[in-house]
């Protein structure tokens, strides 16, 4: 109490100034309609702005949840896509009264680890054996192809992305249908090479490169990238540079493709090989 009085006495000038000034301002806002309305509006707009910020922040904090929901929904939708099904073309047999049977299933997964700066890059994803992932399954992202599953544990899988000089993928030019083999040359993480396109094929810059669907790994028509340049190599084949549509340095969610007919296809191909 003593200290308080001493404090008040010591600072009586400033305190009195604040009191009188507050009183004057109150008078001003109470009796001048213009100032009053300005003050009320200012308070209201500040409040509105703050509320908006808070709302935006809350929404931002929920983005992870929303993302996850969207990814779940996406994989659900992809499961219903036409190219996930194969057609049963048998005029005499009608199975379950349906024309289409499902061939591909998509499992959504999150990137757990990723590298792009080595020659043999690998990606780890957070889905494994118990989720139904097996080796030799294709992995795609929203933007296009990612790679192939090479190792599986219970909860995780390793993926060999295109950005690994050991991976070769069968690819075709969407416009003309000519196919070749796509691999990474180990330098620019945004570019890959497409070789073995025959000399007589029509090739243009800006052509879309998609998966060929010849292997049992990827369905046909998944985006790989676009041609940005090409040259004729050895006289008979084109060597094209492809800008990859997947941004490997900024990858967060991918889908693992389960092909229901894979075993059947590879079994058949193996028989042919053995002959």
């Amino acid at each position, binding site marked *: 109490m003593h200290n308080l009085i001493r404090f008040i006495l010591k600072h*009586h*000038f400033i305190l009195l100034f604040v009191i009188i000034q507050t009183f*004057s301002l109150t*008078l*001003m*806002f109470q009796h001048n309609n213009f*100032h009053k309305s300005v003050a009320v509006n200012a308070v209201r707009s500040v409040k509105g702005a703050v509320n908006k910020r808070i709302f935006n922040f809350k929404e931002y904090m929920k983005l992870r949840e929303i993302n996850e929901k969207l990814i779940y929904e996406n994989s659900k939708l992809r499961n219903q896509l036409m190219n996930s099904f194969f057609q049963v073309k048998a005029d005499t047999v009608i199975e379950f009264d349906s024309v289409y049977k499902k061939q591909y299933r998509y499992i959504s997964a999150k990137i757990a680890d990723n590298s792009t700066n080595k020659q043999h890059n690998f990606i780890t994803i957070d889905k494994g054996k118990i989720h139904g992932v097996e080796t030799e399954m294709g992995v795609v992202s929203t933007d296009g192809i990612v790679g192939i599953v090479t190792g599986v544990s219970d909860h995780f899988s390793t993926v060999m992305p295109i950005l690994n000089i050991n991976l070769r993928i069968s690819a075709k030019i969407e416009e003309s249908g000519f196919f070749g083999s796509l691999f990474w040359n180990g330098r620019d993480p945004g570019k890959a090479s497409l070789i073995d396109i025959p000399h007589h094929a029509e090739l243009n810059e800006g052509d879309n490169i998609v998966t060929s669907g010849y292997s049992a790994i990827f369905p046909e028509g998944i985006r790989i990238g676009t041609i940005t340049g090409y040259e004729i190599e050895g006289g008979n084949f084109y060597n094209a540079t492809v800008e990859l549509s997947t941004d490997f340095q900024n990858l967060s969610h991918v889908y693992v493709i389960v092909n229901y007919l894979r075993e059947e296809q590879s079994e058949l191909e193996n028989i042919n090989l053995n002959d």
Partner: protein
Amino acid sequence: MIEVLPRNIMRFITLVIFQVFILNNIQFLGYINPYIYVLFILLLPFETPKWFLLVAAFTLGIAIDLFSHTPGLHSSATVFMAFLRPFVLSHFAPRDGYEPGTFPRIHYYGFSWFFKYASILIVSHHLILFFMEVFHFHNPFFTLWRALLSSGFSILLVVLSQYFIYRR
């Protein structure tokens, strides 16, 4: 010394009447409105207690406000100016302080001292007053210009008053 109080009361009344009935009705060039009533605060004796300074300033401001239907506007500007006065005074104090029995006037401390003292206080008063009056920053330079022009005229009138009315 005994006559200081009645003289100040007389000055208070004269300045308020002069301001309200004459100066407030004059608008040079459309928007220049000098506010000379602050002269009352400027001329209060050095020994005035600080709290009394604030109370006097509020009374003066509210008196002007009552006549010009702007409650709070002039009083807040005047109180702010009175709040600044002790700091300005101590900043411009001569080496051995203000002599007892003297007043803050040209007659005692010279033109240059009074001019600095008066203009700082008047400009701060006018800035507060004009910005409070428009109460927005849509066109701050126009408001600033108005405040500074009016301050110029107020300073001119205050300085002239030192030569013609409060000579001693």
